[in-house]
């Protein structure tokens, strides 16, 4: 027991020492200083941006990327002020923001770096297959209370949602409950269950035929039923998948962006190129987003 313990400690230390020597040699071979890239913006993207930054730093230790959240608006504001190199945004840049950047003698350049799709999930026993955005809005705001009103069985609807601090919650509120109309003040029905994790939503949807839930496409498992969604009642009902999201057919999906001041150069250009490579896009899938290719 004791011996094994010491062996582990020894391995651990030799690992650390090994790491140190390797970085030392690479530094002596390439007498290049560490360069920092400032990356700030959307809270939806922050985890993805962090994962990319970490992986990139492992591959190229000379480039260090500092990632902070704060919201899309904060990121773009920092880009206008020139305090960041790359701004993350979960919405496209507004005309007045473009004007502000131009006033500083720059031109914003947009990169679509990933896509975010929200899947609507129900219990496999529930016969409902499709819903319109309007029906989803009415269900979650409490106007529709029974599955039979949307072509299902005579069962009460149990609405499941992520907690209010999740970016998915806010996106769902804006795009589905308020149907993208920022003037609307529609709120979630107070009876909506707010679950702290994707696992909480999954567990309830799997066992409760009354439940309806939503979550990022990456969190959907085979034992839930995914609903096909249409923009209009007579429109095509589309199931979410990487293909339908990338073709713009699935209605509850958005592009995620990075913006730079002018065409990026040097390190930033290399970094953005890498982000769009299939290697970096694999991380997108791991985090529950949709890769752009």
């Amino acid at each position, binding site marked *: 027991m004791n011996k094994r313990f010491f062996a582990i400690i020894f391995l651990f230390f030799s690992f650390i020492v090994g790491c140190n020597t390797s970085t030392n040699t690479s530094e002596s071979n390439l007498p290049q200083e560490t360069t920092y890239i400032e990356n700030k913006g959307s809270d939806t993207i922050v985890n993805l941006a962090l994962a990319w930054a970490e992986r990139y730093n492992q591959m190229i230790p000379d480039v260090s990327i500092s990632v902070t959240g704060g919201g899309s608006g904060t990121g773009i504001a920092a880009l206008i002020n020139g305090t960041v190199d790359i701004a993350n945004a979960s919405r496209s840049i507004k005309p007045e923001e473009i004007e502000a950047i131009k006033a500083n003698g720059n031109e914003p350049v947009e990169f679509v770096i990933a896509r975010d799709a929200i899947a609507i999930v129900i219990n496999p026993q529930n016969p409902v297959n499709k819903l319109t955005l309007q029906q989803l809005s009415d269900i979650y705001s409490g106007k529709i209370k029974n599955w039979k009103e949307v072509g299902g069985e005579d069962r009460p609807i149990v609405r499941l949602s992520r907690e209010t*601090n999740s970016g998915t919650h806010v996106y769902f509120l804006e795009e589905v409950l308020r149907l993208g109309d920022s003037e609307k003040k529609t709120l979630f029905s107070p009876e909506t*269950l707010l679950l*702290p994790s994707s696992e*909480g939503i999954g567990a309830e949807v799997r066992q*409760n035929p*009354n439940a309806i839930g939503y979550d990022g496409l990456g969190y959907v498992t085979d034992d839930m039923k995914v609903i096909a969604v249409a923009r209009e009642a007579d429109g095509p009902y589309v199931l979410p998948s990487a293909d339908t999201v990338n073709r713009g057919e699935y209605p509850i999906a958005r592009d995620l962006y990075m913006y730079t001041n002018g065409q990026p150069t040097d390190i930033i250009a290399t970094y953005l190129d890498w982000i769009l490579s299939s290697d970096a896009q694999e991380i997108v899938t791991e985090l529950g987003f949709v890769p752009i290719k």
Partner: protein
Amino acid sequence: MDTTRKNLREQIITAFIKATGYSAIVFVVVIFFFLMKEGLPTIREVSISNLMSTRWYPIEDYFGLLPLISGSLIVTLGATAIAVPFGIGGAIYISEIAPRSVREILKPLVEVLGGLPSVVLGFLGMLILAPFLREFLNLPTGLTALAGAILLGGIAIPTVLSVSEDALDAVPKSYRDASLALGATEWQTIWRVTLPAARSGVLTAVMLGVGRAIGETMTVMMVTGNAPVMFKGLVSLFLPVRTMTATIAAEMGEVANGSVHYHVLFTIGIALFVISLIVNITATSVVFRQKKRQERILS
């Protein structure tokens, strides 16, 4: 020489013990001031009518605290209704009725139950209890106040049982002997003599149990559904609720430091603090009054 050294040692130890005693007061005061400092700005930032409304949706500045307070109260009352009969009943069995050998197995087992991490109970509740309640009672969902009350009751039972068993055990044997000698049955002795004699200890046990239930966070967050629905009568027990503790736990992680929402969360903390203070003061005053009466009777 020897005595002075002894005195010195004695003094150090006394001072140390005194310090530990006072530290409890210091901690409570410090926590109270911290809560006040972070929570009081709410009064300036949010109108009273907003705080007293029945809608909690902080990202759109709806800060109605009533559904959260009512949610905590329903779950806690439900948990107390379960924990008190089971806890005191179990304590009576272990202390008064069970043979020595059974008692020596039961008591440690109950205490192990008390040490179960609440997140484990939450998992059991989410995956087993909630589906069972939904099917058994034909509810829309099993994630209800009832599920929370049952699990919190389960968490509070070991506390109530263990402390009241100690209290019952401390009742002198002569009380029971006298009662039995007067011709009382075993049940009459327990109900009329032993239990009243252990009253203050049993009450402390109940209060500790209530305190455990109202402060519990992880389990309720996992099984009560967290929907901020206002109290509508007994039916609310079978509906999802959102407790104060779950609200703080779920929202504190992401809230911007110093924002209105942040201050309101601390206001909820103050409300929790005040509620548990009221529970404790009521309990101690009841115990004191009874002690005084007992002293009068004895003198």
